[in-house]
């Protein structure tokens, strides 16, 4: 299956992209996806602790299961207002 990963704020320059399309094995969770991203983008590691993940526009946990076509987003600490 494939999922789309949206990237925001300073994480865009860390990953050098606004969005990625990633192929994931069936049964993959948010945790698995983050591990895969860390392997490809080691520079992401120090930012992960403060990064939340949304799946289909809702905050998700590390255990959230991914499905084909999901819209995943890496959400660094927000600073609106």
């Amino acid at each position, binding site marked *: 299956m494939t999922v789309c990963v949206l990237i925001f704020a*300073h994480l865009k320059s860390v990953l050098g992209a606004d969005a990625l399309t990633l192929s994931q094995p069936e049964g993959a969770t948010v945790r698995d996806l983050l591990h895969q991203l860390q392997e490809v983008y080691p520079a992401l590691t120090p930012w992960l602790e403060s990064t939340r993940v*949304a799946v289909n526009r809702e*905050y998700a946990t590390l255990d959230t299961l991914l499905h084909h076509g999901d819209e995943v987003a890496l959400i660094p600490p*927000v600073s*609106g*207002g």
Partner: protein
Amino acid sequence: MSYLTREPLSPKEWHREAVSEHSGASVEFLGIVRRMEGGQPIEYLEYEAYEPMAEQMLERYIQQAQEQFGLSKVYFRHRLGKIRVGEIAVIIGVHAPHRAEAFAGCQFLLEALKRDVPIWKVRAG
């Protein structure tokens, strides 16, 4: 309903709307771009958002605030893009029967924005 805009914000817009006969208190918060940001003088801040998620979260928080604090009106707008010093980044306006709920409702929405809504200051110049 769109809570995000790239146009300049003005509190005039929501003051134009009629006041409900149940509204005894109105509280309005404006977030304004300051000259000093992180110890440096700036001319502007630039904001971006994960727009569909931000809109959906704001919609939900506004509904929650209306129920929890009995708000008779809520006006919420956050501007995106470049915002110059002295210009408004966010307006949160609420009406309630009494002052305590009006302050609590406005502060609830502001804290929800600051904590959870995917909007970022991405550049200062």
